[in-house]
């Protein structure tokens, strides 16, 4: 599945009306959520042609002041129309609607998003004690599948992202485990 369009000029980008989805899974990641809702990041998103933003904030805390509560979500209409909510049973539809996804570096989320062929920026949570998330993010960035970013570097990563240059993630290859287990249990090769 081809990655989202990366327009060549700023003026054509601003008319693209693209959508960004931010997710932190079931974790609490206050700094990412707060930073994504800040003017710095919103300006960077707007400059690249994103006009709507949805944030799945999980258990994170953020300043709800500027938002209007509407049912289970918080909304703010501005240069980038923003909607924030905590959980949904499935995020597949959200991934499908998005032209860019920014997420915590959970491996399940990463696999789900990359298999849909969507451009992905992951932000490892530096406050976690055991930061193997960072290892995964770096390794996948090294292979060109996604961009890894710190909180403070997020706006720059957004501004310089070239989605078309991301390397597609390989499809699920079930034969590897199947063959390994068949071998161990003594089944003949098919």
């Amino acid at each position, binding site marked *: 599945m081809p990655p989202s369009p990366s327009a060549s000029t700023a003026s054509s980008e601003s008319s693209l009306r693209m959508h960004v989805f931010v997710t932190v899974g079931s974790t609490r990641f206050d700094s990412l959520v707060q930073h994504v809702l800040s003017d710095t990041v919103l300006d960077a998103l707007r400059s690249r042609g994103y006009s709507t933003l949805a944030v799945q904030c999980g258990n994170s805390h953020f300043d709800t002041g500027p938002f209007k509560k509407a049912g289970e979500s918080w909304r703010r209409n501005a240069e980038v129309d923003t909607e924030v909510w905590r959980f949904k049973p499935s995020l597949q539809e959200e991934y499908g609607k998005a032209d860019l996804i920014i997420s915590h570096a959970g491996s*399940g989320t990463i696999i789900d998003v990359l298999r849909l062929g969507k451009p992905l920026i992951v932000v490892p949570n530096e406050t976690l004690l055991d930061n193997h998330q960072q290892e995964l993010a770096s390794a996948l960035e090294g292979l060109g599948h996604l961009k890894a970013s710190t909180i403070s570097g997020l706006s720059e990563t957004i501004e310089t992202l070239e989605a078309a240059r991301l390397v597609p993630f390989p499809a699920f290859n*079930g034969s*590897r*485990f199947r063959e*390994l287990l068949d*071998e*161990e249990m003594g*089944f003949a090769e098919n």
Partner: protein
Amino acid sequence: MAIALIHAVVVALSCLVLRIYCILPGKTSAKPRGRSRTAPCRTAVFLGSGGHTSEMLMLVSSLDFGRYFPRTYIVSAGDTLSTQKAVALESLKAADRPPSPNVVSGATFITIPRARRVHQTLLTTPLTAACSLVVCVYHISISPLFLHSSSVDVLILNGPGTCFVLCMAAYLNRLFGLPSPKLIYVESFARVRSLSLSGLLLRPFVDRFVVQWPDLLKDGRRGDCRGWLV
């Protein structure tokens, strides 16, 4: 009198350690020789919740269900989401295959208490781990022996903590020369440079120790890497 007791304990412990050392799997996985297997493989899978469950179900989805049945899913107490996901996978696979009288459709679910809850203090962990071990021993050692329910040919684990307790229960069988499942441990895709605690603990004991990133085998110790399995 006390010295004799100490001697007895030391001898018993030495025998135990020696026995366990003798039954540890070798460094290289021995390929089974002779005729290939025809009998189905009775399979048990531990769903460790969250990302562990998702990865494990991807692994299970790649298997030929005609070769691996009956399938038993072991979940931790309170983890209904893993059960739901496993049921969804079973339905999907059942829809793919024409019904066959030889293949047992559906799966069994067993619940065991967690050895350690997330954030539980290490002080109380031995107690909950012991509870968990007792239930595992019941299912793996006692139940097949006395109640004639089928024991298991292979047990697939991918972490977290409670899988260590399952491994111990399987080893209890081995200690006494009873039938014991083959133990397969698959380290998570998220582990690139360093093994998880479960991986470190289980590495010497399982029959196949599988990692998904080659750096993890840099130390030259036992393990298989066939690339990404998810």
